[in-house]
């Protein structure tokens, strides 16, 4: 099985005055389609930073990221954006919904660069919201949602463009057992459905799920053996 998402010697440093802080340090990994991989590690270990680089929204200080066999680091900005929106869905820790937009509008937002929502896109968006038990809130402005509802709206938005890879940062942080289990079912389903899924988390509910193919451990920016 060839890797769909690949990190090669990925490093990101932050300059903090005179000191240089290394958030992610020489990380190499590969995730194939059909895999559900968990990325564990204590707070501040660099999970979000790694995810951001893999998703093409943060530029690495060193190393390379390959998505669907192509190096995105070498690409020009315009190209990289087009490449990542075609292949990767991202759910950030901050979730990043537009508060004044309705749930459905938020979910449809990634479709605009593709030419806006067609009828089947709209159906897919509604189906996703139903699958995530959010369909009753479709018209509600995002600012009215609870933390868990926002989490699920962000997941629906990441999936609306039918990406082959999904990157999620703490997707169950705000969820009760029941909602968390729904989200995990969706992720497992995606993996079965030949998606490459990477979940950054320290939620034991995820780490102990049988569907999780592998757990990677990050500590102070480096991948370590558990």
């Amino acid at each position, binding site marked *: 099985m060839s890797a769909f998402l690949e990190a090669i010697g990925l490093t990101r440093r932050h300059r903090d005055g005179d000191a240089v802080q290394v958030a992610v340090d020489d990380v190499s990994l590969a995730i194939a389609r059909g895999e559900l991989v968990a990325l564990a590690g204590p707070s501040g270990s660099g999970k979000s930073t790694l995810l*951001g680089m893999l998703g093409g*929204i943060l530029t690495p200080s060193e190393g390379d990221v390959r998505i669907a066999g192509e190096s995105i680091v070498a690409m020009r900005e315009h190209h990289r954006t087009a490449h*990542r929106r075609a292949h990767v869905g991202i759910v950030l*820790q*901050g979730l*990043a919904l*537009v*508060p004044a937009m309705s749930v459905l509008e938020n979910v449809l937002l990634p479709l605009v*660069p593709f030419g806006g929502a067609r009828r089947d896109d709209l159906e897919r968006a509604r189906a996703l919201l139903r699958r995530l038990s959010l369909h009753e809130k479709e018209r509600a402005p995002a600012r009215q949602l609870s933390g868990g509802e926002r989490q699920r709206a962000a997941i629906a938005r990441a999936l609306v463009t039918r990406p082959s890879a999904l990157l999620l940062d703490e997707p169950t942080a705000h969820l009760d057992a029941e909602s968390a289990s729904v989200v995990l079912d969706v992720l497992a389903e995606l993996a079965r459905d030949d998606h490459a899924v990477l979940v950054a988390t320290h939620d034991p509910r995820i780490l102990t799920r049988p569907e999780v193919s592998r757990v990677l451990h990050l500590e102070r920016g480096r991948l370590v053996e558990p």
Partner: protein
Amino acid sequence: MRKTLALFEYAIGALARRPGKAVALVAGIALVTGLLASILSLHAALEREAGALADAMPELTVQAMQGGRPATIDAETLEFLAGHPGVRSIRPRVWGYLFVPSLGANLSVFSVAPDAPELAEVATLLEGRAPRSKGEAAVGDTFARSLGLRPGDSIALPTGSKFHLLEITGVFGAEASLQAADVALVTEPDARLLLGYDDGRFTDVAISLASPTEADVVAAQIAEHLPHARVVRRDQIARAYALTLGARAGLVGAMLLPLLGCFLLLAWDRMSGLGEDEKRELGVLTLVGWDLRDVLLAGLFQNGLVALTGAALGLLAAHVYVFGFGAPLLFDALLGWSRLHPTFELAPAWDAGQIVTVVAFVVVPFSLASLAPAFRAADVDVDALLRGGA
């Protein structure tokens, strides 16, 4: 194309989500545009009036000068002018200004010969007839209306310490209403009495030429023979009018400039500055795969819509203000010299140059104002979103 439409739809939605800001910006731009367009179109309309006025002027006007001040013209001069080659006919005129205390304004008094071409060319009798004998007068419609005068009424005009009674025989309007507003036409004897001219002396001489193209040459020849005379060509008068108007429009413009500047700065700031939520929104768009070009185009659409709506409203308002209401206030500022205002039938006209000016100075800069901040913000805020709270 589908994508452009989708971006456009997003832009409309984004404006609708911040209606307060959108309305404030549209109103501000409408005001700026409206003021600018009002000045431009009033100025253009006045220039057209002045042009019509100049057209009715004699080809050459000769004034005698004494000590650098206008003096009266004597019979000898008339004889010389009448006999000059290139001159078709001369018309000595008696006219001047008469201060009327009860009006608090100057009345322009013209003697009128029954065949006076000025009257035929520019003035139309609205009521009654032209004065034919001593003691009769025809007055401009603005003047007549301000005193409630009709043909058959009489007015007493001051001559020194006494009053001279005139019967109104007619009221006239004019194409170039600038001219007819505060004018009284009387016969020559009355004009001499009111203005204090002795018999055989005239204010100036209107000359019509055998060939209009010789105006320069004939003017120069006359000036040579009459070194103390002033010879004015028609085109010089037209230019003088245009200059006066231009200077006044410029003055009004200059007075409004700081105001306009403030508005522009304010609106620019509101338009180009981004609130926290807008920055965040740009970050979200980048996150979900919008290209910088998409973000910029959406911003351009938003500001373009605001600027176009504002400018269109402003132009419309200016049109109604100038041509519908006769531009109160601004009119006074541009026509300050004449206390008795002409009845102003400004011919409504859309001026392409004016619209281009407004688009160039208002719409384009405001639309472009979105680009810089969007450019800056689109990249920066993803990093914050990456770790930021919900």
